[in-house]
């Protein structure tokens, strides 16, 4: 199952894009409660959002974003049936991509 959940909503001629990504977003200063060892940093570094084939958002994110990050953006216009592609890359090189059709 993909780690990205996407919801879109048509509002006043605009399209709201909301996403929820399952990710620990560890900043590397937390300690394991049992072993007291530092938990290594593990967070999303790059977020890319495409509308059809155009890149509309590129984001550099850090570990100051909460665990299981949520983002929302508003696209001017947008039609039913448009394709939204969201992908992320984290600091350990993991990746995920998810596509969504505007409804």
């Amino acid at each position, binding site marked *: 199952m993909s780690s990205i959940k996407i919801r879109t909503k048509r509002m006043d001629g605009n399209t709201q894009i909301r996403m929820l990504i399952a990710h620990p977003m560890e900043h590397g200063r937390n300690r394991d409660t049992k072993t007291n060892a530092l938990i290594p940093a593990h967070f999303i570094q790059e977020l890319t959002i495409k509308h059809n084939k155009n890149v509309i*958002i*590129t984001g550099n994110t850090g570990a100051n974003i909460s665990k299981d990050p949520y983002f929302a953006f508003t696209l001017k216009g947008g039609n039913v049936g448009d394709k939204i592609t969201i992908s992320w890359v984290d600091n350990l090189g993991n990746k995920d991509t998810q596509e969504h059709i505007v409804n």
Partner: protein
Amino acid sequence: MTDNRRAFIKKSVAFSGYSIIATGGLLASPEASAEWLAETTSTDILQQTIKRLFKDQKIIESDKIDIQIPKTAENGTSVPITVTSSLNNVEGISILIEKNPIPLVAKFELSSDLEPFVSTRLKIAESSAVAVIVETNEGFYTASKKVIVTLGGCEL
């Protein structure tokens, strides 16, 4: 018995010697430690981050940036923030938290197809100002808002 006592005295003398050296070493340079504290104050880290990100660009305070964030956050692990702006031709939005160990939260580059609107959730370590820098094709604008955090978001 006497051997034991001698060993004990020897050890205690040696130990107090060490502790004198240790405290002396710390106290010997009050100026140095004062400098170190000045360097690590958070506003400086914020200024350095801004400098590194925007390279001496002029950043102007603006009231056209609206930050919606709770005034007091009970739990610093997840503080919702929504940034909107009435500035024209917005190209990027950056969010920074003044007192977090690493101030930069995120830097988004938005294409012209997007409204100047970003919403997300933040981790905030302690009560601090949250600054937003909006990049337009005419220049850089900033606004900030203070948040009181009752339970820090970095040790959790």
